[in-house]
């Protein structure tokens, strides 16, 4: 065995960590090599010195410190465990959230659809009422351009007092008025003329308190403008072009 190889193994030899064959080889080498034997002696001495150092003892308070930390830890442990348990149910909460969202969406859709359906129904009813008025001999039950004749005529026929304006000065003379039936209620119908066109303006107390901007609707060739103002729902409908219909709307 070479010296450098022996030097590598001396530590393990002294620690008795070598297999029997290698141990015998190293022992044989040390027996015949004073230099390596001296090295082994040095290492043996250093080993003794190291063991003699002993452990650097922990300060006395450390035991108490550690125990306190452990006590604190076990005191707070129920919380993490609880959290873990809740976390275990995460899928349940997620499922609940998904279901809730589904329900919400369905409800919102149902509300929206019913409102859209109601609006579509209203559109059809308004258009039908307009057309029906034209099928009669006269669209008016009371033919008068006089506001103070028309307005009192509604009294006792409706549960509200409609606003009646003569817009002759603006080019939309009032022709008269009649009662109609839209959305399962009696409504006031004011009839205006624009050249040869007849304009029906239906109005009734609105469920919506807030005023809403005019909405333009085209329905089977008829133009409609729907809005609400001062708690009253207005529907103006005519075969008049939309621009002129909007002009009328602006005056009401």
């Amino acid at each position: 065995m070479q010296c450098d190889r022996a030097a590598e193994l001396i530590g393990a030899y002294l620690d008795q960590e070598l297999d029997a064959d290698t141990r015998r080889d190293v022992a044989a080498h040390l027996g015949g090599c004073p230099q390596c034997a001296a090295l082994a002696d040095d290492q043996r001495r250093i080993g003794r010195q190291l063991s003699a150092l002993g452990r650097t003892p922990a300060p006395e308070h450390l035991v108490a410190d550690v125990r306190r930390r452990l006590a604190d830890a076990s005191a707070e442990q129920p919380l993490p465990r609880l959290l873990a348990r809740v976390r275990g149910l995460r899928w349940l909460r997620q499922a609940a959230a998904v279901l809730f969202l589904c329900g919400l969406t369905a409800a919102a859709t149902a509300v929206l659809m019913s409102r859209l359906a109601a609006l579509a129904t209203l559109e059809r009813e308004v258009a039908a009422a307009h057309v029906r008025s034209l099928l009669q001999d006269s669209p008016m039950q009371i033919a008068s351009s006089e506001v103070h004749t028309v307005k009192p005529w509604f009294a006792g026929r409706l549960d509200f007092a409609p606003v009646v304006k003569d817009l002759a000065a603006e080019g939309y003379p009032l022709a008269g008025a009649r009662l109609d039936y839209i959305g399962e209620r009696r409504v006031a119908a004011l009839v205006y003329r624009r050249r040869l066109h007849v304009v029906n303006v239906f109005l009734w107390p609105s469920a919506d308190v807030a005023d809403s901007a005019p909405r333009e609707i085209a329905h089977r060739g008829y133009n409609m403008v729907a809005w609400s103002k001062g708690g009253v729902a207005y529907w103006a409908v005519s075969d008049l072009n939309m621009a002129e219909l909007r002009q009328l709307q602006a005056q009401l």
Partner: protein
Amino acid sequence: MKERTRFERLALPHLHAAHNLAFWLLRNRPDAEDVVQDAYLRAYRAFDDFAGEDIRPWLLKIVRNVAFRRLGDQKRASNVISFDAAVSDRIGGESAALQVAVEGPSAEDILIGAGEQALVRQAVAELAPIYREAIVLREMEAMSYREIADLTGVPIGTVMSRLARARAELRKTLTRIMTRDESDAM
């Protein structure tokens, strides 16, 4: 609660071993005490994972992991760039080594000729952490190479070469210190 009693009964008897390892790795008492407390807390929380019969290697493994993490943090904090952690620990290690040296003998120790111990302590303190660790586990905890290998997570051959290297370094350092002291004396 019962769990904690069991853990304390098993783990607290090894507090000195844990502290000793932490002390030699960190080379100062306050850090060592912190590391021991952290390690015991971790061990307690991971106590379910402990299945073996001897708790000491399991416990010391946690201690050395916490200690090495702390050393890494210190190294980053002091912004020392390490090309070879095994060697470069010497950089800036001198003062810590001296601190360890003065930790050692009391006045009486020196009177009875244990000044030598201070030199040995200094020599160990000057080793790089992985060599210090190998020396502490082998010489102070009297662990087998197999146990050290399991604890540090390296092959037995590596344990053997680390110990050989550590002892060679110790011998060199002790020779250097002693000759220096002799020349100082003259």
